[in-house]
């Protein structure tokens, strides 16, 4: 297994742990609107992370194989973020908007923390 695959699996695992924590928060704390927002945002963020990992793997594979490829999915990730915000605006009473934005940034926080913790091992 390559370093990149190990890193991808580790990041997805941490995202799932965080999402599980948010679901528990939504179920068992009185701050359900905030946690609904975090769950929605982190679900979309997980999709963004998965898409980014997959597209970069495909893209670099195509460069090595000297075949053609289609983009790296930037617009799909923007559209996913817009989708989460539209849902949050539609169900304003149930979902906290700031929490959705924080949830959307979860994947980036995971990427940076993973990079800081494992830069000597996997990123060298």
């Amino acid at each position: 297994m390559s370093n990149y695959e190990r890193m991808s699996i580790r990041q997805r695992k941490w995202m799932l742990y965080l999402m599980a924590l948010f679901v528990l928060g939504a179920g068992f704390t009185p701050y359900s609107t905030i946690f609904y927002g975090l769950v929605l945002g982190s679900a979309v963020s997980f999709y963004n992370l998965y898409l980014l990992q997959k597209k970069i793997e495909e893209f670099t594979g195509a460069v090595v194989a000297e075949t053609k490829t289609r983009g790296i999915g930037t617009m799909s990730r923007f559209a996913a973020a817009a989708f989460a915000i539209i849902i949050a605006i539609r169900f304003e009473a149930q979902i906290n908007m700031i929490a959705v934005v924080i949830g959307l940034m979860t994947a980036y926080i995971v990427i940076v923390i993973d990079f800081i913790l494992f830069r000597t091992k996997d990123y060298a």
Partner: protein
Amino acid sequence: MGALAAAIAVGMGALGAGLGNGMIVSRTVEGIARQPELRGQLQTTMFIGVGLVEAVPIIGVVIAFIALFQ
């Protein structure tokens, strides 16, 4: 005015993301084409670079939709 604010927010964000991603991808393609054995290392660097570049325009999209619908 809301639509104008949304257009500026998402447009400037996408412009920045396009420039940033273009630079990252072009350098990665150059590097992999020159040394295909470094693919793993370069794609990891590209992943982190693209991830960090795209965080800001995603916030831009969020701000645009909030400006448009609220």
